[in-house]
């Protein structure tokens, strides 16, 4: 029983991390209309930049914001150089290009830093907190808290400010927005910069837990995607609930289902994705969407 409780609690903790990434996905892909397969790899590169700064003696609390600024600039640069030339191309083209970006970034990171996992400092202690006899670390909770704050800030920016409004307008209705004086190109670039910075935060928060290496974001993105699908891709609340469920399920399956074991936990995520899509395609909280011509 104790073991079960522990698994659930730590599942909720990791689930919280999945939830925050799923939230980021939902926000970035839906609210901002951003199509970026390389979201995870960009976050990984940003984290490596932070790592390089820190290992050259820069204080964590300076390296962190510096990395965010660099990530922001990098996101804008990528949008200007790689995405803008194909602004009017079909969705498929955009996805393929961001796929190319993923491969490129992963390869570069691997070549420059190698694939050996490294440890990454965290501002939170590894000490644990007692929750009904089970333990969760301050670090896990800290990650969830920081992600929550960042995502809340982004949400408020998008929904309550004029800048956020113009960004959303530019993303979903570029032509109509131009007729309203919105500088669509720059708003899209801004969106990319912002998404890149959010990704950098995720990467820096998560790296201490899963260890820094070029492939670190790949599996995590799949878990986050499973969480988003489960919750209903359009729903922020769904992403949170989905994340928690995925976290707990994966943990329990890993321990109690003998044929799953450690390395097939990802397959559980895949099974969730397929299962949801077949049985309840709109997820738990999603609304059936009407496609307008």
């Amino acid at each position, binding site marked *: 029983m104790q073991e079960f409780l522990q698994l659930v609690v730590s599942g909720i903790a990791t689930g919280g991390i999945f939830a925050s990434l799923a939230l980021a996905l939902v926000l970035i*892909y839906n609210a901002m209309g951003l*199509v970026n*397969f390389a979201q995870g790899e960009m976050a990984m590169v940003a984290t490596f930049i932070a790592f390089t700064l820190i290992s050259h003696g820069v204080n964590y609390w300076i390296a962190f914001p510096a990395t965010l600024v660099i990530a922001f600039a990098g996101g804008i640069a990528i949008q200007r150089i*790689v995405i803008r*030339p*194909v602004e009017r*191309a*079909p*969705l*498929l*083209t*955009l*996805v*393929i*290009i961001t*796929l*190319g*970006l*993923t*491969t*490129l*970034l*992963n*390869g*570069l990171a*691997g*070549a*420059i830093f190698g694939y050996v996992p490294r440890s990454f400092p965290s501002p939170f202690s590894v000490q644990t907190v007692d929750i009904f006899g089970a333990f969760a670390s301050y670090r896990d909770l800290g990650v969830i808290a920081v992600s929550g704050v960042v995502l809340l800030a982004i949400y408020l920016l998008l929904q309550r400010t004029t800048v956020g409004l113009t960004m959303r307008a530019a993303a979903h209705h570029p032509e109509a927005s131009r007729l309203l004086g919105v500088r669509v190109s720059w708003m899209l670039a801004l969106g990319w910069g912002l998404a890149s910075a959010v990704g950098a935060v995720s990467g820096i928060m998560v790296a201490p837990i899963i260890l820094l290496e070029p492939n670190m974001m*790949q*599996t995590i*993105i*799949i878990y986050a*995607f*499973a969480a988003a*699908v489960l919750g209903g*891709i359009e729903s922020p609340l769904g992403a949170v609930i989905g994340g928690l469920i995925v976290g707990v399920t994966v943990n329990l399956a890993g321990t109690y289902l003998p*044929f799953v074991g450690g*390395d*097939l936990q*990802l*397959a559980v*995520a*895949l099974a969730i*994705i*397929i299962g949801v*899509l*077949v049985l309840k*395609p709109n997820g738990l909280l999603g609304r059936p969407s009407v*496609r307008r*011509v």
Partner: protein
Amino acid sequence: MVQRFRTLPPRYWLVLVVVLFFIGLPTVIDSFQAGEWAQALVLAIAIMGLNILVGYSGQLSLGHGAFMALGAYISAILVHRYKLDYLLTIPIAGLLAGLIGFLFGVPALRLSALYLALATFALAVVAPSLIKRPAELTGGVQGIVLLPPVPPQGASDAYAAVTGAAMTSDQWTYYVTLAWGLLLFWLAWNLLRHRTGRAMRAIRDGEVAAAASGINLAGYKTLAFGISAFYAGIAGSLFGLAAGFVSPDSFPVSLSIQLLVGAVVGGLASIPGPLIGGIFAYFLPIESNQWVPTQTWIPTQIASTIEKAGPAVTYGAVLILTMIFAPNGIVGLVGAGYARLRGRLRGVPDRESGQMPQDPQTV
């Protein structure tokens, strides 16, 4: 009869030349190289399948490496455990993979391009682990080793009659692969010329309009998944034949990326594209690894980084550059160049400026 020959469009002659080229190729290269070309053809077949999915029906898949693995393992298991003749297992592997692909196509209907990419990516990432699990059946981490196939007497004699040397195992593999390649390309060409192809292209270009025209969206999209998985399965099976063994590590995520790069570079939504793409995808990493160190103008830092990074960086850059500058791949570039040339020669007005080209005699 002669009359019909004369009226065949030049394209058919080109196809004939290419086919003859590939039939004759092993006679002028050594056996090892024939094995390499066989692998390139294997990729071309898988890419043809991917092309049907991506180029013609507009659905992205990063999981075709997994379908290749499926085909390869089905064949390997049938041979290893049930002692079937390898050649017999090839179509079986293809059909089973095709069925699974078709089933996978059902949930895939719900996902837009980006999410479908993520889902199939997940499939590719998970595949090696899934294979290792039932170790009894699949040989686990070590995989299954296959005996090199012995060329049958008839083929070997025919080959000896032409070249004076006995046919090697690699060459036999090459010819089996070529035969399947020709069959599958011909099949694809027929499929895509007619109703199925038109329906798929209509779907790719505008789903809502296609549905409004009465096209069964779900049906054709899942069909496309099934067909493309069928091709990948056959390619996987042939891969096992060519490589001599199958193991989980033969089918990493990068294979799926490699297939996509080949499809894009060759030319999406074209028939010759996958062939060019397959050759490109197979030989590029090998050639660039040999070429880069010899280029003295590249600073050693960068050169060693590129070497260590392997094909990933090249693939990524190629994908990006191709989609920006030549979204229709090599076939598209050649086609556009050819059209422009013909236009100049025939005196067709330049579409952009509305001006007639210069009369060739007066300069």
